[in-house]
């Protein structure tokens, strides 16, 4: 049970890291919606995922 809880707990950090990498990739490589407004949205959305992946927040 403890092992399962630990795995699930760490999967959340892993998922945060995966989403952060996806957002970062899309910030620089995307075909649609290239405007600055979307750049800002991508960058801003990235923050909580990076903070969680780095165990800061």
């Amino acid at each position, binding site marked *: *049970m*403890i092992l399962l*809880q630990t795995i*699930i*707990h760490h999967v*959340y950090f892993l998922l945060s890291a995966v989403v952060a990498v996806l957002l*970062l990739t899309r*910030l*620089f490589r995307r075909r649609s919606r*290239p405007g*600055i407004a979307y*750049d*800002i949205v991508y*960058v*801003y959305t*990235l*923050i909580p995922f*990076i*903070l969680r992946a780095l*165990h*800061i*927040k």
Partner: protein
Amino acid sequence: MTTTTTVQAEAPRQEGPREGRTTLVLVRRLVLLAGAVLLMVSGTREIRALRAYEETVVVSEAFTRQVMLSHWFDGIAGTRMDTPVYVFDSGVGGGSVLLLGGAHAYEPASPLTAYMAMENIRVTRGRVFVIPRANRSASTLGMLGNAYPPFFRIRTAWGEKKYKIGDRETHPLEQWPDPFTFVHYPSTQNLAYQDSRNLNRTFPGRADGNLTERTSFAISEMIRREKIDMTIDVHEASLGYPVVSTYVCHQRADELCMMASMVLSAEQFPMKTETSPTSLRGLTHREIGDFTNSFAVLMETPEPFIEKFAGPMTEELMMTGRDEFVQTAATRGLLYTEYDIKTGATMDYRVGRHLSGALEVIKQMGEFYPAKAIGVTWPTYAEVMKNGSGHYLHDPQKADGRRVFKN
């Protein structure tokens, strides 16, 4: 065809309008990313400071040893829930008591009471165990969404001493995700989801439960194995909470609490007493009483800072407890304790109440059960109100290094 190709390849390369725009977009995105990094670094400065900060305590000469809680249950070893336990053993028979501080880290008079006891304690009979940060993880997290200041400071003759204002629950970095509904063990009572991280909803704990349940289990194990006669869990409450300024006691400790409450109310400050409800599961005053032989007592002081309707959440409000909205509620008879904005509910008042409240109930245990008597002193309510909390906190720079600890 071949010649033309050669000429084109050798011509100086010039950036077209399309390539120039691409470079501009790349620079723009890099600048935005740099801004986000800057925002992350500057915006989390307080968060990182709170997470890393360690409180200093200079224990009194009565100090015997420091042991980590995982000594009694290794299921929390190596985690941020493992917390130091300080033992003050007189070497003379008698009873034993556990002073449990910081179960809810956003009630900071609780750990401060424990620290002040530890810095000034004298024990002539029996043993005293102190856990100043029962939920150590919660002390590293600011109260989510409430804009609490991360620290408060106590002024002393030698400078300021800084303490943390934490959260109610275990940090999500230590325990996540929360269940949809938290099912309390072993009663199977359904509690709110966030109570799975609330140390004072997970007692008596379970060895293979979540991290907070395992911590509760470790504390219960310590009480059982050390045969601790009385457990005093120190809290603070909103003034609109019925058990504010109250002892909440397991039924086995009822008589002790009633006597202590009468003595305190007659001689020092108003103190109510209430029997722990049997249907309210997971709390120390219920589960430690049911699952160990210890007399389980919980104490609450009035903390205007945690009122939902109080004004700005500032360090000043934390220290003075003066708030006009709380006064309005008091004037309209909506509170469960006395309140006057002129005096507020200062940190000295709250800590002093706890120190004397604990001493009185320990004394009553000795009166009712002489074999469990404990000879213990630390600053009283009257002394703290007269001299201030800072008077009883010692300078770690001038203290014997063997008596200085970080929490």
